[in-house]
């Protein structure tokens, strides 16, 4: 693998919360166009890893590089979002009073400054993009409903739709199928594979059936660092992984 193929590079990232080490010299390399599943028990540091990548949490030590020369630890959340890193939260967070349509509208990539949004009118191009996103996440019939009125699974999908509307290079999804039915989970796996054709994805999940369905390289986190990585069959045969998941 050449350096030019690297999209995201975490090197020796450590995060302490009042003496508690949430990430411990974590290193991880993601290639352009790759989809990666990250698994690990509760408290392993998966969400903290996403916080570090998206600028919410500054690491105490370590490097977080995006592309060849962008150091993410020097940037804040809006700047990182503008670079093309989108994030879906563990707890679905959509804009509840706004319609499904407006949720997507606010997420559409474009000028974020007040001086633009004060005068902005919805263009035909924007309408077309919103419709296409709603089509992809199967929320076309719900476009006029309040975000807050959607079911849990629909909110998860709306948030994925908002992520797509941002047109990011890299999508970070934190437990996207939590609370979904089996059928919805399957559809989500399909959707992520579809998205992965054009974008890189990091997906954190607990649901093993889902991870299996994605059929991508898996990284197992434990106590803030990488315990094991490889195919799902490889990691689930790894005795250290078995011990962490089943040993106690």
């Amino acid at each position, binding site marked *: 693998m050449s350096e030019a193929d690297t999209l995201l590079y975490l090197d020796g990232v450590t995060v302490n919360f009042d003496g508690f080490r949430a990430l411990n010299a974590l290193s991880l390399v993601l290639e352009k166009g790759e989809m990666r599943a990250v698994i690990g028990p509760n408290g392993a540091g998966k969400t903290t890893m996403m916080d570090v990548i*998206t600028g*919410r949490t500054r690491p105490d030590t370590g490097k977080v590089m995006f592309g060849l020369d962008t150091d993410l630890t020097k940037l*804040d*959340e*809006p700047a990182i*979002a*503008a670079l093309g890193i*989108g*994030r879906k*939260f563990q707890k679905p*967070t959509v*804009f*509840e*009073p*706004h*319609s499904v349509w*407006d949720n997507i*509208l*606010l*997420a559409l990539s474009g000028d*974020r*400054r*007040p001086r633009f*949004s*004060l*005068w*902005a009118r919805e263009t035909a191009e924007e309408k077309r993009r919103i419709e296409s996103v709603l089509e992809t996440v199967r929320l076309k019939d719900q476009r006029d409903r*309040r975000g807050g009125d959607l079911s849990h699974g629909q909110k998860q999908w709306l948030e994925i739709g*908002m992520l797509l509307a*941002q047109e990011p290079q890299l999508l970070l999804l934190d437990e996207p199928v939590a609370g979904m039915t089996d059928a919805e989970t399957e559809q989500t796996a399909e959707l992520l594979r579809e998205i992965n054709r054009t974008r890189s994805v990091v997906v954190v999940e607990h649901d093993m059936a889902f991870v299996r369905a994605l059929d991508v390289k898996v990284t197992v986190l434990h106590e803030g660092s990488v315990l094991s990585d490889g195919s799902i069959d490889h990691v689930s045969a790894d005795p250290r992984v078995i011990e962490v998941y089943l040993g106690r």
Partner: protein
Amino acid sequence: MKLDRTAGLTLGLTFGIPLTLALLNQTTDVSAALHVPTYVIALAGKYLCFAMLALAVDLVWGFAGILSLGHAAFFALGGYAMGMYLMRQIGSRGVYGNAMLPDFMVFLGWKELPWYWHGFEWFPFAMFMALLVPGLLAMGFGWLAFRSRVTGVYLSIITQALTYALLLAFFRNDMGFGGNNGMTDFKDILGFPVQADGTRSALLVISAAFLCAQYLVARSIVRSRFGKVLIAVRDTESRTRFLGYRPEAYKLVVWTLSAVMAGIGGALYVPQVGIINPSEFAPANSIEAVIWVAVGGRGTLTGAILGAVIVNFGKTWFTGALPNLWLYALGALFIFVTLFLPNGVMGLFAARAKKPAPELEAAE
């Protein structure tokens, strides 16, 4: 711009009622049954200025989640700018007959006009200052506060501290704004005697026009894409940052605009009540403005106007009939509204129409 029923009614009543009052005052004889006495005109004008303050508070509280407990400061600053103009119009008609210096400066033994009083004899300059001073203060304050991500109760407390600091400053005689007594005994505005019925009626109608204009501006802002971002910031600020928005920039714009709106209200208030003094900076005034908005219905704009008028009408009645009980009544009203009418009076209308406004229901 399309107007729905609520907006149409709001504009119609906000302009129609004051206009009718003014016309009845001007065209009917004092003895006529339909005659509106001048004191009613003055009261109505005062209510409308308070409604502008309420609208300003609702814009930041209802739509950006910034609970300002210092908005009366911006109102008062606009009022002082107008007060300075009116003082300069008195000229040699003051008690000391000094054409250049207002009475209180002569009384303090000052020999010349302080530099910051220059230009205020010119109406357009004074009005420009009534917008600029509150706007600049809000911009500086907001830039510091929002950039450091001060939110919630902490922000409310520092807005309260801001108005309190100004209260203390304006009390001082050496500030050159009349100290404790403030400014009063105004003679005329743009050549018209401030006390005259005709002037008062005109000021009432002008206030109504400004209130309508402010309502329209506020409404188009909250319905714009900017407004949608603002509501998103109010409910889930951190989420907007991960979408690439800078909440501090949005808050700063709306906060500054809101201060300017309050300043306009203050500027129109002073000629109609005939006095401006430091008590306008009193922390309680800002808190009252928040209560007006809560009573009318936070995040509805129309409710802000309605709340300001209803509560102040109540205040006028109470201070006449049972002056000692007003503060208790106000407190009780606030508790009642908080417990039983979370969306204020507008919530009652919306419940009847079974169709809550999207801005309204979200204001939690």
